[in-house]
């Protein structure tokens, strides 16, 4: 038990201090690549001998980024730009940015104008994923990322090195999925905040370290007696479920988080790199296999809803909370379809507004409380 507490404290520390992690990597003489969310080809970074670190912005009231970023920029990209411009990301050798939405497109230009010391490596995921050319397109995009990373690393990324990295990332994904399953058996220990910190911390860790730390946590959890949770259970869906205050509201109302479909959390760990003719093809194929994510176009607009209903059935969830990142049109468009399907399945579904720039979670608290009371 004390093991678990100590391990969770480590995850808390890491998830709350990415700057400290960056400092440690740099002090070690390592080169670090910032990875904008989500679906950045991190195995390429690892295969190049570089360190990938997630860029999730943070709870900051933007001051300098307003020069380039309009007010209606989602708070993740707004705060990332703020950190970039104010020097908080100093030391990164480059930042990898996928253009998954219009906000990214605008932010890529803003970054180039406002953050002179961190070069941006931009690439595009093909949204028409059914087209036979989609795989070739993705491979070509990743090739250009590979070339840029090789320049920074001063060495070639071999097929073998990339294949090894893919295996490592698949192992990490498996460890994260196992953690999610185990967390549900120990909802007394893995509170919504603790769960989130584990998921987020991993985005700042080298994959081998993540496998080691999460593996250790999983082992410790397995040794604990299974907890019979009597409160309500929810699933979170959206981009992120931050700040911690929001998650604390669940605990205050005896509501456990038993699953998630968050871009910052499970969406990153649920699709493995499949076997393919080459490591690069495997890396690219993963994008074509992603399902039920607002960032990856799907002709069938019921996929995400179906997935959530199934997840709720599997985990015994009573409801689904749509964590709506403010100004994220991509998530907004998904919302009506998803809510409709959830309601048809008899689940209580409601949305909460997510904005990193404010600490006021009053409305969300009311909604969570109402959910718990009914």
């Amino acid at each position: 038990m004390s093991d678990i507490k100590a391990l969770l404290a480590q995850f808390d520390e890491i998830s709350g201090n990415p700057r400290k992690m960056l400092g440690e990597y740099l002090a070690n003489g390592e080169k670090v690549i910032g990875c904008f969310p989500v679906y950045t080809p991190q195995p390429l970074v690892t295969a190049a001998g570089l360190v990938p670190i997630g860029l999730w912005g943070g709870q900051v009231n933007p001051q300098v980024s307003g020069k380039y970023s309009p007010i209606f920029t989602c708070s993740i990209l707004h705060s990332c730009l703020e950190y970039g411009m104010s020097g908080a990301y100093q030391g990164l050798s480059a930042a990898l940015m996928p253009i998954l939405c219009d906000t990214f497109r605008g932010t890529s230009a803003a970054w180039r104008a406002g953050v002179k010391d961190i070069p941006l490596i931009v690439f595009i995921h093909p949204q028409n994923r059914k087209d036979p050319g989609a795989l070739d397109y993705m491979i070509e995009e990743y090739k250009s990322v590979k070339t840029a990373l090789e320049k920074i690393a001063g060495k070639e990324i071999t097929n073998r090195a990339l294949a090894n990295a893919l295996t490592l990332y698949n192992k990490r994904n498996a460890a994260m999925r196992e953690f999610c399953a185990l967390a549900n058996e120990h909802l007394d220990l893995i509170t919504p905040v603790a769960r989130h910190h584990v998921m987020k911390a991993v985005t700042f860790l080298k994959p081998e370290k993540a496998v080691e730390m999460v593996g250790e946590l999983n082992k410790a959890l397995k040794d604990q007696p299974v907890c019979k949770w009597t409160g309500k259970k929810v699933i979170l869906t959206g981009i992120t479920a931050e700040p911690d205050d929001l998650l604390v509201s669940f605990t205050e109302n005896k509501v456990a988080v038993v699953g998630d479909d968050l871009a910052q959390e499970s969406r990153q760990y649920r699709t493995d790199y499949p076997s393919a003719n080459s490591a690069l093809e495997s890396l690219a194929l993963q994008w074509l296999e992603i399902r039920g994510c607002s960032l990856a176009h799907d002709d069938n607009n019921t996929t995400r809803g179906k997935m959530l209903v199934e997840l709720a059935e599997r985990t015994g969830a009573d409801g689904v909370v749509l964590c709506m990142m403010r100004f994220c049109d991509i998530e907004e468009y998904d919302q009506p379809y998803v809510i409709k399907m959830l309601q048809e399945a008899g689940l209580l579904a409601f949305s909460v507004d997510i904005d990193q720039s404010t600490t006021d979670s009053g409305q969300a608290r009311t909604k969570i409380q109402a959910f718990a009371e009914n």
Partner: protein
Amino acid sequence: MFAVGIDIGSTASKAAVITEDGVIASKAIVPIGTGTVGPARVFAEALDRAGIARSDVKWITATGYGRFSFEGINDQKSELSCHAKGISHLLPQVRTIIDIGGQDIKVMRINEKGTLVNFVMNDKCAAGTGRFLDTMAKVLDVSVMDLSGLSQRAEEPAEISSTCTVFAESEVISKLAGNVKLENIVAGIHKSVAKRVASLVQRCGIEQQVAMSGGVALNKGLVHSLEEEIHSRIYVHEDCQLAGALGAALYAWDHLQPA
């Protein structure tokens, strides 16, 4: 022994007292909300009207935006649950509730037991809220109580296209400058609020019957606009403003019942 519900909103405080037998003993409304003397005053007034002392009260449940800050309560409940319970008591046939509060809009669907089955709230935006109406009344230099009568005398509602409170304010000012009749401007304001609320109603889904709770429901002009937008009759109980407090009082009363 008595049960008390107190609803501490952002612009008004409301309270209801219920007897041991479940009868409403008194109700009170004070037009100032959280962070003021409103909550204490409304509580004292409700007790006074019921002719009881503080020591006669066995359980107090608070609700509303200021529910965490009132001293001496026994528990607190979300305003969503309290409005649902309150309206279900006042109008048992109702399955959809619209509540326009000082700073938020809530749309709730409830079952026959008054339990929430679905709800939608606007997110941190004053568009369509009571605050929006207050701001507009100020710009027009009329009392918010007069908005209803004015809009009912309108010939043709003016077009207010901005949902944003700040932009709508300048739009209203330019209508005034363009000599558009006051009545038509007010009707236009109601229509713009109604459109905003209707989109939330659509998100939540409508089940008959529909009722409105909260003080804004007393604005007949707005209720009429909303009826047009959602194509449904809206029932308004005379105690609509007290629905939250009454719901809280009913929750408090539940505690007085033997387990």
